Structure formats: C-alpha cells, structure tokens
C-alpha cells in the first residue's frame, strides 16, 4: 500500500538551521544554549524562534557547556523534554555532566557538530570529539546530510524517550561540511511531528522527580545495586539497536524517508569489496561507488548511522563473505595505529571471517575527503581483495 505523502515545507537552509528547525518541531520544554563554532547558528536560530513566538521553551542561556548539560539533565529528570547543542571543546567541557546524564538514564537529546578536539588548536571538522565520548553510555548517531539532520533529530526524541530505552541521544554531523552548507530540505509540519511523537504518550511514563515526594535522583549506587544499574543500562543500549531499525521503518512509513536504521547498505548486493563510512564523506563516497559500479567493479558501501550501540549484528550480516573491507575514519585510534571505527570493524573478524581489512584515516582538520581520495581507497581495497600485499593503515592525505 502506498502511503499518502505528508505535506512539508521546502526550504534551502544550512545544517545548523536544520537542527534548530527540527528541535522546534519536537516542542522541547527546556533548551540550554551556549555558543561554539561551528554550532552557534543552532542556538541563535532557536533563540530567534523563541523571540518570534514560534518556540514555547524555557531558554537557559548558560555560562558554559558544563552547565548546559547539567541544566538539561536536571530538567529532563524532572520530566521535561530537553535539548542542547555543542561541539568539540564544548563536548569535552561537559564530560562529567554527560556521564551523569547517561547514568541517570535521562533521555536528553543533543546535537554535536563534529569538530577537531583540543591539543592542536583546530577550528575545523573532524570526528575525534564523538570518539572521545564513545564509552560513557550515550546513544550516538552520525548523519550524512542536512535532510538527515532534521529526520534524525525527530527520530532521536522518539528513541531516547521510548519507555524501553530511556537513554540520552547524541546526533553528530560534520562541522563546516554540513553545519554551514545549505541544501534544499523538506521540513515536516509540526502537527505531523506531534502525531508521530504522540506514540510516546501512550507508553508508561518514566519516573520523574516530584517536589514534596520522598524521592531522589543520584543516590550512591553501592556494590550490587551499581552493578545491576550498569547491567540494565547496557541491556537498554542493546535494545536500542532493533528499536532504532523499527523507528526508521515507522518514520519512513509516516514521512516517506528511510535511512536504513543502524546502518545504510548502499549497492552492497553482489559487492565483493566494501567501504565503510560515516558522516558527510558518505555522499562523496556514494558518487565514487556509482561510477565504479558503472565500470563493472563489484563495490558497495556501508554507512554507519548508529555508532553507539555499535551495530555488530547488522554489520556482521552485511560484511560476511566479502573479499576485502576498508573503513574510513575521520579520527585516529591512539594505541592501535588505525582508525577507531576500523578497530571496531576489525573486532568483528571472528564473525565475518579473515579477509583483508584496511584502515583509511582522512579528512582531519578540514582536509577534504575528495573523490580521488576515495577512488584511491577503493583501488587499495580491490588490490587487497586480489591477494596483493597491502598496508593496514593509510593516512590518505599524507600519501603521494
């Protein structure tokens, strides 16, 4: 049955504006705002909505990211729908608070506009920030383009606040490449988003901190209780995988746009070699894959959308039986001499079998991941598939 297309408004707006538009559609109760390049436009646009009477939220203009995360976490524990946005240094500054958010199982939704992290001062794109918080219990999703920013933020509230999940979600998109580039996007109508998210109202309500009630948030978890809570947290993360696939289907049936859930499989049918990507570089890679396919090369692409929890099962299924696999990382995995996502794909070796695995590190600090760069990666993967010697880790932009 073909569903009737929902109405929408088409606009040409930046990735940052997309984030703000999507947040407005989800009607948050409390929003914490603190600017940082390349995210600032998100908070500016949200305050503009508020000033124009288009957003009925409490806006907390905090004095730092740490307070941003603490204030929205508390508002969330009290029962609110909340939002904040950050990037890189800001993410690092809210680290302790973020761990608390996860431990509290507070369904906070946050946008992280990926940017290189401190050490070497860098006002430029890179995914090292999201890697630095991969093990603190947040769900993490990485998106490819502006339209996906809008759709994923709406999906993120649906996922975070689901009674079976109750975990914070971080939506990542590449700074500069997506934050500042305008594309024509379809913005859903707010009534439709209300209807889509109304499913959450039919679920049991999560525990809330109520004044006058003898209850607390943040008790010392001792021994067995601590262990039990960690176990439950981990179990909720595992549930999030199938849940996210289901939400993607449900969202697609409702709004007409599907993204594949945890991962997107692009031209993988009959592919002998696979390139694994994430974020905005995926778009470039897809055009290279298309051209290679036209030349008869059996190559496919897998885009990692959900990074935490790591889509082990779906990846195993799609990567099994290939002749060689390459993984593109916009970050580094210190201590393993490879990219972090490569490292995780490599951990699937027992399931997918021993085939050549290649790590490509590219796109650090606004180095463009160009079509020639991706063509080169595919050449390397192909050569490895044919049994030629290969190097495990390649810093693409430092070669030649």
């Amino acid at each position, binding site marked *: 049955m073909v569903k009737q297309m929902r109405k929408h408004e088409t606009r040409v707006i930046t990735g940052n504006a997309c984030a703000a538009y999507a947040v407005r559609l989800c009607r948050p109760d409390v929003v914490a705002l603190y600017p940082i390049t390349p995210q600032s436009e998100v908070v500016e646009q949200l305050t503009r909505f508020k000033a124009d009477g288009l957003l009925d939220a409490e806006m907390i203009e905090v004095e730092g990211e740490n307070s941003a995360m603490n204030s929205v*976490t508390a508002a969330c524990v009290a029962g609110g729908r909340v939002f904040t946005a950050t990037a890189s240094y800001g993410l690092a500054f809210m680290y302790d608070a973020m761990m608390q958010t996860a431990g509290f199982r507070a369904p906070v939704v946050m946008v992280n506009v990926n940017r290189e992290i401190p050490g070497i001062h860098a006002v430029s794109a890179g995914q090292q920030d999201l890697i630095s918080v991969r093990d603190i219990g947040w769900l993490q999703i990485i998106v490819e383009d502006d339209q996906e920013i809008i759709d994923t933020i709406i999906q993120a509230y649906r996922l975070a606040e689901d009674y079976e999940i109750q975990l914070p979600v971080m939506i990542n998109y590449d700074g500069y490449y997506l934050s500042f580039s305008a594309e024509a996007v379809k913005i859903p109508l707010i009534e439709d988003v209300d209807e889509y998210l109304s499913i959450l109202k039919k679920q049991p309500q999560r525990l809330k*901190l109520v*004044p006058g009630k003898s209850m607390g*948030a943040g008790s010392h978890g001792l021994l067995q209780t601590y262990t039990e809570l960690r176990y439950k947290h981990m179990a909720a993360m595992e549930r999030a995988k199938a849940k996210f696939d289901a939400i993607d289907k449900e969202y697609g049936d409702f709004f007409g746009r599907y993204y594949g859930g945890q991962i997107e499989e692009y031209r993988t049918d009959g592919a002998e070699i696979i390139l694994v990507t994430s974020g905005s570089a995926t778009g470039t890679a897809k055009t290279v894959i298309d051209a290679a396919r036209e030349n008869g090369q059996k190559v496919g692409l897998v885009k990692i959308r959900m990074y935490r929890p790591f889509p082990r099962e779906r990846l195993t299924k799609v990567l099994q039986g290939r002749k060689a696999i390459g993984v593109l990382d916009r970050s580094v995995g210190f201590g393993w001499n490879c990219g972090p996502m490569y490292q995780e794909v490599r951990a699937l070796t027992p399931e997918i079998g021993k085939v050549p695995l290649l790590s490509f590190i590219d796109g650090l600090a606004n180095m463009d991941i160009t079509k020639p760069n991706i063509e080169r990666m595919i050449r390397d993967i192909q050569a490895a598939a044919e049994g030629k010697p290969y190097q495990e880790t390649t810093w693409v932009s430092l070669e030649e």
Partner: protein
Amino acid sequence: MVEKVKKLPRVFDYFVEKDQFAGGNTFCAGCTAELTLRTIPRVMGKDIVMVGTPCCAAPVLHGQNLGAWHKLAYYACVMTGVASSASGLSRYYRKSGIDTTIVCFTGDGDASDVGFQPLSGAAERNEHMVYICYDNEGYMNTGNQRSSSTPIYAATSTTPVGKNQKGKPTVAKYLPLIMALHPVSYVATATLSHMEDYAKKLLKAKEKSKHGFAYIHVFSPCVIGFRINSDAGIQVCRMAVRTNYFPLWEMEDGVFRFTHTVSDPRPVKEYLSICGKFSHLNEAEIAEVQKMVDERYSILKALVETTARKETENKL
C-alpha cells in the same frame, strides 16, 4: 504539682514542619552543618527540592542505593553542576506550573571553587532558587583540604604547618560579598549561634526565590577541621560573630544591613585561640588577621551606610 513548661527558643516559632531527617545519621558528632541542614525544611516546609553534590552532607542527602536519611525530594549531581542543575529544575517546574522552592545545599568548596562558575551564572540569570552554602572553610568531607574559603594561616591537610610554611598563605575569598555584587535580590550571612536570625533569612530567601535568586552563606565550623571539641561548634559560631570575624548581614534589593550589631567587638585573637587550626599563629600573624577582619567589616559598614542613605533618599 504544677509542671514547669520549658520555654522553647524563639527559633521554634519559625518551624512549620517536623524534622525531615533521621536521627543517628552519618554526620559527625557535633557537626554544625547538620543543624544548618535540618533547619531548612523545618522553616521552608517539605515541598522543596534540594539539590546537592558530593560534600559532607552527601552521605545523608544522596542516600545509598534505595535508602536515604531524609524524606525530601532530592537531586544529586556532579560538583560542577549544582546551580546549573537547579536552574534546569526551576525552569521546568515553572514552565509546568508546579509550585516549589529549589534549594541548593553545598559546602564552601563547591560554592567558592569548582561550582563557582555555575553559581555565578545562575545568579546573573537571576534563576528562581535559594542557594545555601554551609561554610566549614575547606574540603572537610575529603579530609580537611584547603578551599578558597579557607582563611589565611589556617592549617589544613594541604596547607600544613611546617618549617617552610605556616598554614594557608593567602586570604579567603569572601563569597557572600561576591554574591551580593551579582544582580540578585537577596544575599545573607548566617550562623548557628543565632538561630532566629538564620530562620528569618531562610523565610526571606524562600519568598525572594519566587522571583529570583537568593543566597545564604552559613558559617558552619567543622569540629574535625577546626580542631575543636565536638561540643564546641556553637561556641565557635558565637565567637566568630562577637569578634566580627563573621558579621551577620543581609542585602535585600540592593540595600545592605547588619542583622546583628556587635556593640563592643572582641579581639579576633579570642576567636582564633579557641580553634586548633590557628594554634600556631604568633602575635604578628594574629594582628594581620585582625587587620583583615577590620577591613572586611569596614567595607560592609560602608555598604550598609551608603545603601541605607540611598534607600532613605529614594523614599523621600
């Protein structure tokens, strides 16, 4: 036989609620912070939400696993997050039409050091909350390390007295005055030797927090850190007031006033001599502390006089 009814101290007139805390809890014997804490819901009522963080009060307030030592709604957060978490709670309850008072309760280490940025931020935004700092002049929960509220020359576990050092080398940050210079409507100091004064300030702060930010700084000496006997806490509070080491004042809508005037202040030496942490001070150092106390008092006096004059002029 006629039974003689024991007259209760006047602070009892301000109590609207039963004690919300369990007896035999985990505060040290003689801890003045315990009295500071217990008094809050007795005066403000139990429909408050307390916000706190790792500190001496945390074992009692946070509780362990599913139990706690009190009956209040409570939010425990990281040390950097007290005033900001309280901002989030306050905003959400306000938006949802839930009438409550958010009360932050932290030590001086959190308020003046690691939690100062969010505290200052919440004050500048005039968030609707009461922030109560119990000042025991250091990190007592972790074993008596120095904070920026630790007074000059005080011996702590990180400013020891030795051949090359005599306690803390620098003067304490005077947090209540710093808070009073924020655009807030109420700031007060209080201590446990003057309970009625403290209760009045709690009530006033609760009222003021309906429209903005209120701050109370409560001098709460730690029996361990001050090196005093467990029955001497209140006596130390009283002597701190009598010597003007800890003057009792309030700032209400820009007007400063002393809520207790000491007509004939005792030399600060009398205060220093009853606290073990100052036992190594020589006369010159005592004189230096006296000078610091006098200067602080003169600043407060000037603020009281100037703002009182302004208030009178405004009324005319």
